[in-house]
C-alpha cells in the first residue's frame, strides 16, 4: 500500500553557511494547510524541498511515499505553482497548458481537451488564445494555477498564489482551493495575507528564521501559547455587571468594557475554566448575552504572539 503522507524528518537546508530551514519535522495532512512566516523565513525553501527543486542538506522527505528527487514520479502526484512570473516566450494560455499536459504524458487530443477544461475552471477561456505576455498580473497568476492543477495532482503546492489577484479573483481562487481540499487533496498554500490564511486553512505551519515555530489546527496552536492569556469577546446588555463578577475568578487577568458600552473583552489564563464559570455568572446576573467568542484564535493573533507584528517584518 502506498504511503499517503507528506513527511519531513529532521530536514535542514543550508545555502553554504546561510540557514534555509533547520531540523524540520512535519507531517502534512489532507486538507488546506497554510504556510505562514515573514519574508526570508523559509516558506519557499520548504516548498522547494517538498517539490524536489532543492535537495536537503540533512534529513529525509517523503511525498506520498515518493522521494522528491524523482521528478518523473513526483510530479504525477504534485502540482506546483511557483511564485516566479515566467512563461515560454510567445506562448498563449492554451499553448502553455497544452505543453504542460504533453510533458505530463497526455496525448495531443487529451491535452487539448483538458487544457480547455482547466482554462474554464480558472476563468481564462476568453483569454486562452492571447499571449501570456499580454496578461494582467491576476491572469498570469491564474494561468500558473491552471498549470499546477491541470494534471489532477493529489498534492498542490502553491507559493503565494493570491498575490496580484483582485478581491473577486481572490474569492474565486479561495473557493477553488477549498473545493480541492474538500475533495481530500493536500493543498499547501504559502501566504503572508494572514486573514486569508485564517479563512481558508484547516491547519497552519508557522515558520520563522528557518524553524517551524508552530503547526496544527489554529485553535490547538493557540491553546499551546500559555504565555498569552486567551481573549474572549462578550457582547451583552449590562457589561459592568458581568465585569464585576468576573474579577472574582483567579484565571481572569484583565477585563475591558468595549467603547460602545455593549460588551466586554476578557483575558483569561484558563479558557476551559473561564467558560464554565461564565455560564454561572450569566445565569446569576440575568444579563442578555448576544455573543461569546474567542477574539484571538486567529492566525493573525497567533502569528503576532509567536513571531511578532504581522506586516512588521513581512
Amino acid at each position, binding site marked *: 500500500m502506498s504511503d499517503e503522507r507528506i513527511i519531513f524528518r529532521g530536514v535542514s537546508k543550508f*545555502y*553554504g553557511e*546561510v540557514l534555509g530551514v533547520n531540523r524540520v519535522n512535519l507531517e502534512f*495532512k*489532507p*486538507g488546506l494547510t497554510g504556510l505562514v512566516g515573514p519574508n526570508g523565513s523559509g516558506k519557499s525553501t520548504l516548498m*522547494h524541498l517538498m*517539490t*524536489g*527543486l*532543492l535537495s536537503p542538506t540533512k534529513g529525509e522527505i517523503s511525498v506520498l511515499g515518493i522521494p522528491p528527487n524523482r*521528478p*518523473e*514520479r*513526483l*510530479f*504525477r502526484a*504534485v*502540482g*506546483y505553482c*511557483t511564485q*516566479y512570473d*515566467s*512563461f*515560454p*516566450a*510567445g*506562448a498563449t494560455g492554451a*499553448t502553455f497548458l497544452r*505543453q*504542460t499536459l*504533453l*510533458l*505530463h*504524458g*497526455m*496525448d495531443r487530443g*487529451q491535452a487539448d481537451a483538458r487544457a480547455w477544461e482547466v482554462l474554464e475552471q480558472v476563468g481564462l477561456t476568453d483569454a486562452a488564445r492571447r499571449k501570456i505576455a499580454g496578461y494582467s498580473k491576476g491572469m498570469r497568476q491564474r494561468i500558473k494555477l491552471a*498549470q*499546477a492543477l491541470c*494534471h*489532477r495532482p*493529489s498534492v498542490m503546492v502553491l507559493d503565494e498564489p493570491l498575490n496580484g489577484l483582485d478581491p473577486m479573483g481572490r474569492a474565486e481562487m479561495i473557493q477553488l482551493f477549498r473545493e*480541492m*481540499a*474538500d*475533495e*481530500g*487533496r493536500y493543498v499547501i498554500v504559502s501566504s503572508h495575507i494572514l486573514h486569508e490564511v485564517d479563512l481558508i486553512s*484547516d*491547519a497552519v505551519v508557522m515558520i520563522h528564521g528557518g524553524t517551524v515555530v508552530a503547526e496544527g*489546527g489554529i485553535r490547538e496552536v493557540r491553546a499551546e501559547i500559555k504565555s498569552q492569556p486567551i481573549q474572549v469577546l462578550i457582547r451583552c446588555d449590562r457589561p459592568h455587571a458581568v465585569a464585576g463578577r468576573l474579577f472574582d475568578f483567579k484565571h481572569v487577568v484583565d477585563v475591558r468594557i468595549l467603547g460602545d458600552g455593549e460588551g466586554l473583552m476578557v483575558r483569561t489564563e484558563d479558557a476551559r475554566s473561564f467558560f464554565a464559570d461564565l455560564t454561572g455568572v450569566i445565569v446569576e446576573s440575568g444579563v442578555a448575552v448576544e455573543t461569546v467568542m474567542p477574539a484571538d484564535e486567529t492566525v493573525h493573533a497567533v502569528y503576532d504572539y509567536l513571531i511578532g507584528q504581522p506586516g512588521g517584518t513581512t
Partner: protein
Amino acid sequence: MAVYERAWRRYTGELTPIRTRFLVITRYGLGEAFQSRIFTAFYAACFLPSVAGLFLVYLSHNLGLLEQIGLTEELMGGLTMSFFQYLFMWQALPAFFVMVILAPGLVAPDLANNALPLYFSRPINRVDYVLGKMAVLFLLVSPPTWMMGLAIFALQAYEEGGGWGTEHWRIAAAYLVGHLVWILVISLLALAISAWVRFKPAAVGTLFALIFVLSGFAEAFNGITGTPFGDLFHLTRAIASVVLHLFGAPTRSDLPVLANWFTLGSVALISIWLLNRKLRPHEVVR
C-alpha cells in the same frame, strides 16, 4: 481534524513514454525558431552548398549536359576526395552559424526569466531539459549537413557504380561522424555559454570570441614555444583534423589525431559540467 472523503479522480488514461517526453520541449523550441523569417531564409540558404554538390555530382556523370554547357569531361572528371572535403566545410560553416544564432535563444531566456522552477516542476529532469534543447539544434542542423552529405555520397556511388561506394566508405563515415561530432560539441558549448551569459547577443558574442581567442592563443603558444601543443586549445583545428583523418587525408595539426579528439572531448565535458552547474531550479546567491 476534518475527515475528508477522497472524491476526486486522478488521471487514469494512458501516458506517453517518459523517455521521449523531452521531445515536447524540442517541438516548441523548433516552433519558436521558425517564427523569425530571417532565420527561416538563412536556414534555407544552408542547403545551397549541398544542392550545388548534388548538381555537380549529377553533372559529372552526364557527358551530354557537360558538352552543352561547354565544360570538358576532364574538368569535371573524377570527383576527387578534395571535392567532398570542401563540400563538408561548406556544409559545416553555415550549420555552425545556425547553432550559434539559435542556441542562446533556447536557454538564456529561461535562466534570465527564472523559468527553470517552472520547467522542473514537471515530470522532467535536467538531462531531459538539455536533451530537449539539444535536439532542437540536432534536428535543424542534421538535414543540411550529414543527411545531405550522405545523399550526395549515395548519388555519386549510384552514378559511378562498380563498387565505388564500398571503396570510398570513408567519405560516408566522415560525413556522418564528422558532422555529428561537430554538432554535439558546438551545441553543448553554445548551450553552456548561454546558460552563463544570459543575454542573447552577449552569448553569441562570447561564443565567437571564445573560439577566436582560443585559436589565437593556440597559434601564439605554438609560435612562442615552437611546439604544436597549442593545438590542444584550437577547437576549429581539432575538428578539421578529426574530419580530415576520417576522410583518410593528412591532418592540419602536428599533434596525433588522438590529441584532437581529446580537445573535442574536453570541450564537451567542460560544457556539460558548466550546464550542470548552472541549470538548477534555484540559484543560490550568497
